[in-house]
């Protein structure tokens, strides 16, 4: 599904991502962990086209997407949520998801249809699956942080991605919101047969849903394998898990 080879990116003299190779197979739930500054977000930005890699290649479904602009990457079947919540704050919850559908169905150049009722059923169905349908008419910036994160997930899902990248989907959430969100994500991933790649600080979350874990440290992969393998890896225990306990 996703194959990344020898990806590199430096900022000034600092190697943020220093030759990362990674493979995520179809339907897999994969996590990337690592201490702050390990290069997780930079790595995501390189995959999604927000940053250009200095070297290396990214393949999505066997096709080279290295260096494509974000909107092209999105069109090729990748969805993403951002670490800092990224929604359309002054649009309603309904409009947020609807806009993503308009773009995905290539209706964005339609200048004369009325937009109000467009894709109402699809939008509402998606909002139902996120538990946000009761709040469809609310301006999205008034939602709680957790609900905004869920809405962002809905925006990403509206493009019907095959691969979904989530950058810290539970950042800043309370314990109960975290649990709820994780259950939501794993249910949606299962229902839609999504391939999922996510970063996360919360180790409990990672080890509860990931089938495969990659550990980044100083821009390099120091371990890659099942949760069981990673948990027992000596390097990981030393540089990362050890530090946290």
């Amino acid at each position, binding site marked *: 599904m996703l194959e990344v080879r020898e990806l590199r990116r430096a900022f000034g003299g600092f190697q943020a991502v220093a030759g990362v190779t990674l493979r995520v197979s179809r339907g897999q739930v994969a996590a990337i962990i690592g201490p702050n500054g390990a290069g997780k977000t930079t790595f995501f930005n390189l995959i*999604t086209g*927000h940053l250009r890699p200095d070297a290396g290649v990214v393949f999505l479904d066997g096709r080279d997407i290295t260096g494509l*602009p*974000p*909107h092209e990457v*999105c*069109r090729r079947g990748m*969805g*993403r949520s*951002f670490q800092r919540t*990224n*929604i*359309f*704050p*002054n*649009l309603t919850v309904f*409009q947020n998801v*609807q*806009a*993503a559908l*308009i*773009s*995905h169905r290539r*209706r*964005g*150049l*339609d*200048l*004369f*249809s*009325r*937009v*109000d009722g*467009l894709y109402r059923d699809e939008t509402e169905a998606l909002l139902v699956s996120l538990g946000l349908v009761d709040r469809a008419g609310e301006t999205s910036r008034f939602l709680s942080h957790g609900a905004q994160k869920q809405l962002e997930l809905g*925006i*990403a899902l*509206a*493009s019907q991605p095959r691969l979904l990248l989530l950058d810290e989907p539970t950042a800043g959430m309370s314990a109960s919101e975290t649990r709820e969100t994780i259950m939501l994500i794993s249910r949606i991933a299962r229902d839609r047969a999504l391939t999922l790649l996510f970063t996360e600080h919360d180790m409990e979350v990672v080890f509860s849903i990931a089938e495969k874990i990659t550990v980044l440290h100083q821009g390099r992969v120091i371990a890659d394998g099942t949760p069981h393998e990673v948990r027992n890896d000596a390097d990981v225990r030393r540089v990362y898990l050890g530090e946290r306990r």
Partner: protein
Amino acid sequence: MSVLRRIPWALVVVAAALLVPLAGSRFYTFVATEGAILALFAVSLNLLLGYTGLVSFGHAAYFGIGAYTTGLLMKQAGVPFVLAFPAAGVLAAVGALVFGFFCVRLTTIYFAMLTLAFAQIVWAICFKWNAVTGGEQGTPDIPYPDLGWMARLPIAGDLGTSDHFYLLTVVLVAGCLWVLRRIVGSPFGRILTTIRENPERAEFIGVNVRRWQLLAFVIAGAFAGLAGGLFGIFSSGVFPDFAYWPKSSEVLIMTILGGIGYFYGPAVGAVVLLVLNQQVTSHTEYWPLILGTILIVLLFAFPGGIVGALDAAVRRARFRRA
């Protein structure tokens, strides 16, 4: 309240506007013509400012291009208005396409500065290209379109030429506003608002942000050009001032004064600023001072503009009654 909501206010305003010449004052017709044209100009800018989130400091460029296109075609080439008027929109759109291609490659203040730079180029061409534009003096004596057929209409038949041109202006402006209204209420318009709200996110729902920004820029330019085409005839001459930066800032002020969050806000702003200007300058020479004061009060006390303040007042009243 629900009864008030059901009234088609846009039609009421258009109908009322059509009655202005019956007041029998040439001055009213004069102000109303200018108001209608500037309303269209301001609403066209708001497609960028309020809907796409792009601040243009050079919207007068397209107004100027439109004015010169219609004016010169009608005066120098004898082209009838039915062709010279749409030509203003087309040429302004072409100008906006060329300039906008470069502008949308920049963001925020750099975008704004580049729009200003291109507008100054347009102004310089109008100012210096004596053989075509008439240079500094402009080109006077742009003729009125042939509206002889209006003389055969009931009621309107008794009115003068400038009244006839006013009626034509009202109809054309109303038509343009209707089209713009459809555009902002379309799927395309919704995509523009996502760009205003969050370009990064818009990009990652698959929107080629620059392409949509450019399209908005072209459409806004086209309608500014149509407004300019009418304005040249109204002023019975086209002058470099039409494309000069004070014209760009004037339309920006109108738009913000009326309220960028509302479709008709800029139109209200245009009419209010025009009438205020007329009234105040007849009493005092310190119009710029008063304008400055109004702007300061507005920006601090009513950031939503006139229409935003009215909207908030209506909401409060309704809330209290409920």
